């Protein structure tokens, strides 16, 4: 047993589980890095919002979810989709506008979904997927399933009224929903202080009578612990919960580059957060506890590199949708 991870005292963590968490984070990181690298090829002809630096949140959350639990996400959905078990090829095909994309190429990077693993949908409009996730929770409750819905949201989306309407309804009906707020301190280039008063975001959830906690979003074990508690509550009918996870986006808001030179955030802040890299944070502890060594890490990376390379090769060779299908599926059925 690996014990005593610094940020999460008292947590006893199974080394193979911890290594899995590490592998998941590493995989997402490497996929995102590869997208960034290849973006200039202009084969992915759509906006991309990378989650590099924020991998611990979806990995910690997904660790306690079932396949049949339902997840909704935002414009920054790659990591949520991958962590929930979304298909990498279908994702890359989607980014490249191919017929085998999860949306048949119609949505692009902000519409990732995969019903087969409970990734219900992602939407590019800030906060728009929040009520939809709550609606999924309502449906789960109506159908008397003991699955839960997880709603990912950014720090900006609590500024949208619809977050509050959704939180209120979920509280009134004690719906099985867990709100996961990735607070990365920015909405595009605008800092939290310019947009919200100085109070914890979790206070908003408490105002609605929700069970709310704040965690270090770069500590995957802390996230997992909070998720485990929140999901248990939701699943057992004790109602909705809210997790505020503090984290940081490394690259520009939209696109593959770094953008600190724009001056909207300081180099010092950025460096500080890089030092709190969620991967290295966990790796250090795993290493300290003998659960991960250089060779193992290199093996993991090699395995993932191969998977990614194959997926890109596949997607780049995949066919485009036929132009005359453009008008299909305006209506269902």
């Amino acid at each position, binding site marked *: 047993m690996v014990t005593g991870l610094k940020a999460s005292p008292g947590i006893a963590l199974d080394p193979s589980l911890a290594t899995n968490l590490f592998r998941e984070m590493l995989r997402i990181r490497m996929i995102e890095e590869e997208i960034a690298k290849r973006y200039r090829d202009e084969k992915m002809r759509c906006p991309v919002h990378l989650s590099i630096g924020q991998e611990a949140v979806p990995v910690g959350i997904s660790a306690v979810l079932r396949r049949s639990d339902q997840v909704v996400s935002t414009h920054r959905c790659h990591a949520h989709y991958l962590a929930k078990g979304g298909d990498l090829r279908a994702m890359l095909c989607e980014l490249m506008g191919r017929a085998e994309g999860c*949306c048949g190429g119609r949505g692009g990077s902000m519409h990732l979904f995969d019903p087969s693993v409970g990734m219900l949908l992602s939407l590019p409009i800030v906060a728009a997927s929040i009520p939809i*996730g709550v*609606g999924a929770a309502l449906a789960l409750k109506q159908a008397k399933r003991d699955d839960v819905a997880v709603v990912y949201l950014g720090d900006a989306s609590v500024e949208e009224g619809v977050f509050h309407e959704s939180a209120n*309804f979920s509280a009134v009906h004690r719906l099985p929903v867990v709100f996961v707020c990735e607070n990365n301190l920015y909405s595009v280039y605008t800092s939290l202080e310019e947009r919200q008063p100085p109070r914890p975001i979790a206070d908003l959830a408490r105002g609605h009578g929700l069970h709310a906690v704040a965690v270090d979003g770069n500590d995957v074990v802390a996230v997992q612990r909070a998720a485990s508690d929140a999901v248990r509550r939701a699943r057992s009918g004790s109602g909705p919960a809210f997790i505020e996870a503090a984290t940081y986006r490394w690259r520009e808001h939209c696109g593959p580059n770094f953008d600190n030179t724009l001056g909207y955030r300081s180099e010092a802040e950025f460096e500080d957060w890089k030092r709190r890299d969620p991967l290295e944070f966990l790796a250090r502890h795993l290493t300290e506890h003998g659960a991960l060594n250089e060779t193992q890490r290199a093996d993991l990376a090699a395995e993932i590199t191969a998977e990614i390379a194959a997926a890109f090769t596949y997607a780049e060779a995949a066919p485009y949708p036929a132009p005359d299908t453009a008008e*299909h599926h*305006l209506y*269902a059925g």
Partner: protein
Amino acid sequence: MPAERVITAAEAVRETLAQALRDRPEVFLLGEGVADPTGIFGTTKGLVDEFGPDRVVEMPVAENGLTGIAIGSALMGRRPVMTHQRVDFALLSLEQLFNAAAKSSYVTNGRHRVPLTVRMVIGRGWGQGPQHSQSLEALFAHIPGLKVVMPSTPYEFKGLLHAAIDDDNPVIFIEHRWLHYVSGPVPPERYAIALSGPRLVEQGSKATVVANSYMVLEAIRASAALAGVGCPIDVIDLRVLRPFDPTLILESVRRTGKLVVCDTGWRLFGIGSEIIATVAERAFDALKKPVARIGLPDHPTPSSLALAETYYPGSGDIIDAVGKLCDLPAAAVSAARAEVVAARRGIPIDKPDPAFKGPF
């Protein structure tokens, strides 16, 4: 044969909802007042007693969020029927309806379905003023991926609402409040009317009058009066605005050569504009005269009866328009007009016309 059963449109809606709730466990109602003692103009009255608060769900005053919640539940296979007591409130929910619901099937390449019905009540009368009396169907009609329905008679209310609830797409179901009072024959059993285009209400040969919702009644009355002066007309109830199927309209205009469109909402950039545009594109050669448009003038609804009196066009205006297109003698137009004025029996225009109670 037993006499046909005659009920009001409000009763027809209630019966439809009850049948849908009974037949399909995935149907549920959602709305402000849906479970209250008055039940949305009687259309949901008492349903909570039969089906319970999990099927007849009272909602907070949060139109946008609850629309999203309805969409989310629909994606999971439920069939929510949401109601807004006034379309003016539904403006809060257009982001969800236009961005999320309308595009769901398309963007997922047909993998998502949103079997959502949104009832929106439009209306007029009793000094409701500018923010409680709009008819905003033109907004919805512009958005691909929505279906947009405007019933006129009780028979249509029931059949179209069943079809809307059965449909796997988001359907905007626009009910004129005054039509709730209208009665007509409605079979007790379940039936659906396909969401696929207009219906021919009256057949004449002199001109084509296309109307929607409440204006269908005005057109029917005008048609009767015009027939009385030897000028029978086609009256077409637009009924399903989206998917837009102009076939019947084009056919009619090809027969009559003359077109009058009547909007329940604003004339400018309205429903009638599209009908005219389609005809001018596809049946241009059949048109013998300039088209005529009837609809609300280009300003908000004033509350004062003194100002509202000129706001709402009616059968008289339809008679005038047809009279002009058909070169009717002035005496014939006056006679027809006199008939519809008499039928109204001096009732102020802020109260429903008792002669419009039906049966239709």
